[in-house]
């Protein structure tokens, strides 16, 4: 490769790298800086360096523990639901199905629905305790309808978010299944493997990598679920549906406490980085192959 090509390469790459660098470094540096200040937008001009006080305040705030717990429950439940159901649905769609492409379209549709729409449609049309469809189904079966957002608000959010992410898991696992060698499966069957052990020893190991990818990518997005909470519960009742993202939002744009919101932001960055570390390694390994 000539020096000229190399120079041209750098020139072409330059703007993208520079922009991303600025986009990442400037706000991050500001967040770190703000996180060491006593800074409230309601008292401008009163900023004061306080060291790590904001971090201590944020991390020892009972709201932090509650929101950390909610975040973990939300991420964990949605992961389990989407991966278990996604695997089952992908296996089903991998069978001989008449009209599979239409079924596929129906299955992936929720992924394209904007979060504010899915949240409000589920909250009102489906989960409303009196006029929602679920309430009608429950009453028809002789059960008491559940008042989702009063009695099980976090479960309600989990169901909505799981519905949005189920297509993603299904689609990726289905794509992976379809690349599984038919002969491999047949060979397993010839060797006397039943459908169950063939799934356990042939299919599942093949799905291990795509499942890992689904877990990591979903985790990145699920850690910062925001719109669904914003339009349905506003984090309540109490702190029942406040996750870390919503807590930071509330401290920044409702209480105008820039300092502790920034400290919280840094905590969120650290948590996301732990997940990102593993994801980047997996993707990087693939880049060499």
């Amino acid at each position, binding site marked *: 490769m000539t020096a000229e090509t190399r120079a041209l390469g750098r020139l072409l790459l330059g703007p*993208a790298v520079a922009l991303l660098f600025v986009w990442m470094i400037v706000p991050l540096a500001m*967040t770190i800086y703000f996180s060491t200040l006593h800074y409230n937008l309601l008292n401008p001009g009163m900023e004061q360096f306080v060291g790590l006080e904001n971090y201590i305040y944020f991390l020892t705030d009972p709201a932090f523990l509650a929101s950390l717990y909610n975040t973990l429950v939300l991420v964990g439940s949605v992961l389990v639901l989407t991966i278990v159901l996604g695997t089952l649905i992908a296996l089903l769609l991998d069978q001989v199905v*008449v009209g599979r492409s239409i079924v596929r379209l129906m299955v992936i*549709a929720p992924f394209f629905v904007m979060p504010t729409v899915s949240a*409000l449609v589920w909250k009102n049309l489906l989960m409303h305790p009196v006029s929602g469809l679920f309430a009608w189904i429950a009453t028809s079966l002789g059960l008491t309808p559940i008042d989702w957002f009063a009695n099980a608000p976090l479960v309600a959010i989990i169901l909505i978010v799981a519905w949005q992410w189920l297509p993603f898991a299904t689609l990726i696992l289905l794509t992976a299944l379809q690349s599984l060698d038919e002969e491999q499966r047949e060979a397993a069957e010839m060797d006397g493997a039943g459908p169950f052990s063939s799934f356990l020893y042939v299919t599942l190991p093949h799905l291990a990598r795509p499942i890992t990818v689904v877990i990591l990518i979903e985790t990145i997005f699920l850690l910062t679920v925001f719109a669904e909470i914003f339009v349905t519960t506003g984090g309540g009742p109490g702190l029942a549906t406040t996750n870390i993202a919503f807590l930071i939002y509330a401290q920044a744009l409702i209480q105008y406490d*820039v300092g502790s919101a920034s400290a919280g932001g840094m905590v969120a960055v650290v948590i996301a980085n732990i997940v990102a570390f593993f*994801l980047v390694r*997996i993707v990087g390994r693939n880049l060499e192959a």
Partner: protein
Amino acid sequence: MARRVSPARICVSTAAAWLVGFAIFFPILWMVLASFKTELEAFSTPPSFLFFHWTLENYATVQQRSDYLQHAFNSVVVAGGSTLIAMLIAIPAAWSMAFAPSKRTKDTLLWMLSTKMMPPVGVLVPIYLLYRTFGLLDTLGGLVLVLCLGNLPIVVWMLFTYFKEIPKDILEAARMDGATVGRELIYVLTPMAVPGIASTLLLNVILAWNEAFWTLNLSSSEAAPLTVFIASYSSPEGLFWARLSAASTLAIAPILVLGWFSQRQLVRGLTFGAVK
């Protein structure tokens, strides 16, 4: 050779698959149906499934009361604008990494990926304050900027995975035939790159259209795209289900159609090429 499958098994798996597909799609279908009902019928128990008085009234009301078209226009500008600008910056970058890779290319790519991992809420405070200082709050330009930068890593990555698949031998062949660099670009590379560019464009329009963190936090009325407009239906006093459904149907219909066309690229784009 395809596996021989008994007709009975096909019947069972077909029925099961359609049942599952219908169940997953049902909330969307239910919303579309509700958009054609009167407010009273949308709210009634027992619910009416198909035999209700079909009306288009809600669609008219949505436009009259809240200027739906203005918000739709904002969504088009924000999703389209941010995607186009990101493409303009990303195409040369992805191109140079795919065709003139250096020792640092892999690290650069992974670093770009890692910027996407940064939770937006981690930089909400500084972005909000910067936007307030520079008068970018609730402006289309501000939203275009933030969504463009937010999606840039995905755009570069997707384009890179597509460009990398273009065989390099073909360039040499063209060069042997005496093609100049310009001709090479127009007649050989561009036709091979267009499908990848188109899929990238499509997927990113979808992502930007549905983005609901920055749009909710940085816009309120003037520049509000459809995500924010729909969010305004969350206030308890303004809750009209049929109207909410009509507005929602309009907001998701175009993107649902685009999404159905881009489902294969979706896997690739969102897994950064880790699953194809």
